[in-house]
Structures are given as structure tokens and as C-alpha cells.
């Protein structure tokens, strides 16, 4: 009995870890949806935007390098924005941000490359603002490159407000933080009080993105795995194996309501497996 409850506890902990990760990626997609709504439905911003892409590819400055894939590209009449959205600080962010700054060209969906215009801006958003010491490192690395265009950090968060839930954007008030060029989008990003986009508005664009993020799919698959499969579809022995090693060595047996053979070993690839199984599931996960 004691062993069984410790297995349940381990599975619960793994679920909470997976769900936390999923929720963070999910908020990123909310932010993308909100910005997409703003680009199309705030008239002065829509009028000055000629092209935007939330799965863009940038041309690396040196040949034989993989294309860069930031979270957004907004090409306007007077300025080009590259967007990257993060959940929280990672040392790798410095290298990645500088890489995006170095890129000289971007790809259009038809595969053609276009050079960035003279006015450019790098937008870097965080759910949790990086600490000052990390900001110093980031801006030291950025300034060292002498790009001649700003890096603008902002924070985004999903908030409950009197008028309904909203995604809120606000520029980080750090003295070395850049200022966007004064297009309408730039003015909104520079606005010291920030700006919200209601969930009711962003939902109109949300379905374009909720299956688009590779990371969010993998993390959601992990949620499914730990909530549904780890709890309901494994034998007691398999649960113990899962709790100990994070996977099961042997193929799963046929499961109730399954829609195909269950063959792969889950160890080391459980997200992929759960992802393929996801359409078969009746899932209820805690909010």
C-alpha cells in the first residue's frame, strides 16, 4: 500500500511538472494570438503592416548554417520587427538573440529571401522578467555587436481583470532597454503603461496557433501521458516502472477504447508516442 501511494505521488509530481511546462508554452501561444489580433484589427497597425509571419525563417549570416526560426516577423512600411517569446530566462537567450540580430535576410512563405530594411527592431518578450544581472549580460552582448537597431524587452502575462481575462504586454523598465521606432506598433510597445488584449478578442486568432507550436505539442503530450496513461492504462508493475524511470520498457498491451496497435517502447520518447495517441483520448486535465 505504501509503495502504491509513493508511485501515485511520483506520477502526480511528474504530471505537475509536465503541466507547468505546458501552461507556460500555452501562454506564449496566447501572446502570439494577441499580437496577431492586434496586427490585423488595430487599424493604424494593420495599415502600416505589409507582412507578418508567426513561423518565420531567417537567413543565417554565414553559409551552411541552419535557418533561424524566431517566433515572429513583422514587416512594416517603416520598420521590420523580429519577435522572440520566452517563458523565463535562459543563458542561451543571449546567443540566440544576437544571432537573430546578425541575420540580414528573411524568408517569405514562397521561399524567396528579402533583405531587412534599414529600420529594424528586435522584440524579446518574457513571461518572467530576467533579473538585472542577466539583463546586463544580454545588453552587453547586444551592444557589443553594434547593430544600430534596438533590442526591446517586454513582459507578457495572462491576467484576470474586472472586464475579463486578458493578455497584457508591457515594456520592461530597464534603463538600457531599447525603444521601438515610432510606428503605431512601436508606440504601443513603448507605452509605459502597457496594453492588454482581451481573451475574447485573441480567441479569434487562437485556433490558428494552438497546434502550431512544436514545444506546446510535446509538452501537452507529456500532460496526457502523465494524467491519462500513467494513471489509467498501466498495470501496477508498469506504474512502478514509469515512476522510477519515466518510461516503460515493454510495449503496452491493448487498452480500452484504443484505436490502433500500441507498440513503441515509451522510454525516452514518451511525448512523441503520447502525441500520436492524443486524438484517441478523452482527457480532462486540471486547469
Amino acid at each position, binding site marked *: 500500500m505504501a509503495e502504491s501511494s509513493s508511485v501515485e505521488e511520483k506520477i502526480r509530481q511528474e504530471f505537475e511538472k509536465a503541466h507547468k511546462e505546458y501552461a507556460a508554452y500555452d501562454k506564449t501561444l496566447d501572446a502570439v494570438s494577441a499580437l496577431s489580433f492586434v496586427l490585423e484589427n488595430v487599424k493604424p497597425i494593420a495599415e502600416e503592416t505589409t507582412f507578418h509571419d508567426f513561423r518565420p525563417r531567417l537567413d543565417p549570416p554565414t553559409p551552411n548554417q541552419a535557418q533561424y526560426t524566431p517566433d515572429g516577423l513583422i514587416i512594416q512600411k517603416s520598420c521590420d520587427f523580429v519577435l522572440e517569446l520566452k517563458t523565463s530566462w535562459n543563458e542561451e537567450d543571449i546567443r540566440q538573440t544576437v544571432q537573430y540580430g546578425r541575420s540580414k535576410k528573411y524568408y517569405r512563405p514562397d521561399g524567396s529571401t528579402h533583405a531587412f530594411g534599414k529600420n529594424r527592431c528586435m522584440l524579446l518578450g518574457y513571461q518572467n522578467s530576467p533579473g538585472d544581472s542577466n539583463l546586463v549580460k544580454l545588453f552587453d552582448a547586444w551592444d557589443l555587436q553594434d547593430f544600430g537597431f534596438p533590442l526591446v524587452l517586454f513582459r507578457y502575462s495572462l491576467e484576470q481583470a474586472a472586464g475579463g481575462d486578458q493578455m497584457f504586454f508591457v515594456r520592461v523598465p530597464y534603463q538600457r532597454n531599447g525603444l521601438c521606432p515610432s510606428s503605431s506598433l512601436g508606440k504601443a510597445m513603448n507605452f509605459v503603461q502597457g496594453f492588454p*488584449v482581451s481573451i475574447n478578442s485573441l*480567441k479569434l486568432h487562437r485556433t490558428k496557433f494552438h497546434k502550431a507550436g512544436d514545444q506546446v505539442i510535446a509538452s501537452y503530450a507529456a500532460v496526457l501521458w502523465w494524467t491519462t496513461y500513467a494513471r489509467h492504462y498501466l498495470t501496477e508493475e508498469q506504474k512502478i516502472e514509469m515512476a522510477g524511470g519515466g518510461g516503460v520498457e515493454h510495449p503496452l498491451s491493448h487498452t480500452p477504447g484504443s484505436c490502433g496497435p500500441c507498440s513503441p517502447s515509451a522510454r525516452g520518447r514518451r511525448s512523441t508516442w503520447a502525441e500520436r495517441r492524443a486524438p484517441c*483520448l478523452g482527457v480532462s486535465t*486540471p486547469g
Partner: protein
Amino acid sequence: MRAPLTGNLFCEFTVARAGYLSFHKGDCAPLMRLMLDRLAPAMVDSAKPFERAKDQFVTLRFAEPFFADRASYGVVLDAISRLPRTSIALLHGNPYFHATLTNYEDGGEFEIFITQHSTIHIQGRGEASPASFLRLQDVLTQSFRDATVALEERPLQYSLRDLLEGRV
């Protein structure tokens, strides 16, 4: 229900919550007229928003703020779980509600959002049929009473001031 007619004539019938009509006794002509003249057009009208719903949200607006409390999301999940041969993925449960429902019975796939206290927003993916929408509407209204069904208005064009003052 016993509807008196002229003299000793009457028409007795039952209308069930789910829409079943049962004739019990009396003169069936008034019931037939009711069905043909009023009920049939009303049923056709009720499916019209779903016929024009491609790429748009359909809103089910309830008279009461059922979704002011997040606990009500569980009732929504229970309701849509009653549809046979479906799978539901809850993508978001707090603060707003977003689930995907796939109906293997008829191939319908739906995005279901709750972002306001008295409204459920449904978007059919691909070629979701009006009948498939109706099945979903039916289980929801069984749990939360009747709702006004309409297509969601196309979003407004906002000004920069609207954005900065929190009206978007």
C-alpha cells in the same frame, strides 16, 4: 398540455424538454398545424447560424452568468463528454476555457471557448455539419438551459487609442 378548442373539442399532447412531441388524445389537427406552421420553420431557423458558420464562431448566449465561477467549466466538460464517440482535449482551463472536441460519429471537430460569463463560443473546424453543431448545442443547453444562438460579429477595427486604453 391540454389545449381547449371550441365546444367539447380539445387536443392533448406533451412537449418534452428535448423536443419530443407526443399526441395523447383529442383532435390532432391543431397539433399538426402547430408543427407545420410554427415548429418546422422554427427548427429550420435554429440551424441557420450553423449553416453559415464556416470559419466563424457561433455563440451560445445564456440568460444567466453560468460561467462566472470556474467550477462551471467542469459541468461543461461533463456535458460535452456525454456525446457518444467523441474525444475531448482540454487545452486551457484557467482562467479561460478552451477545449477541442472531435466527434467520431459525424467527423465534426470543434473548438469550444468560454471567455465571458454567459457565453460559449464554438468554432467548427473544416466541414463541421449543422447537424453536428446541433448535437453539441443540445448537450450544452440540456445542462445550462436554452441559449440564444448567433454568429459572432466580425471583430471591430480598433484605433491605437482603443488598444492603449484597454478596449481591445
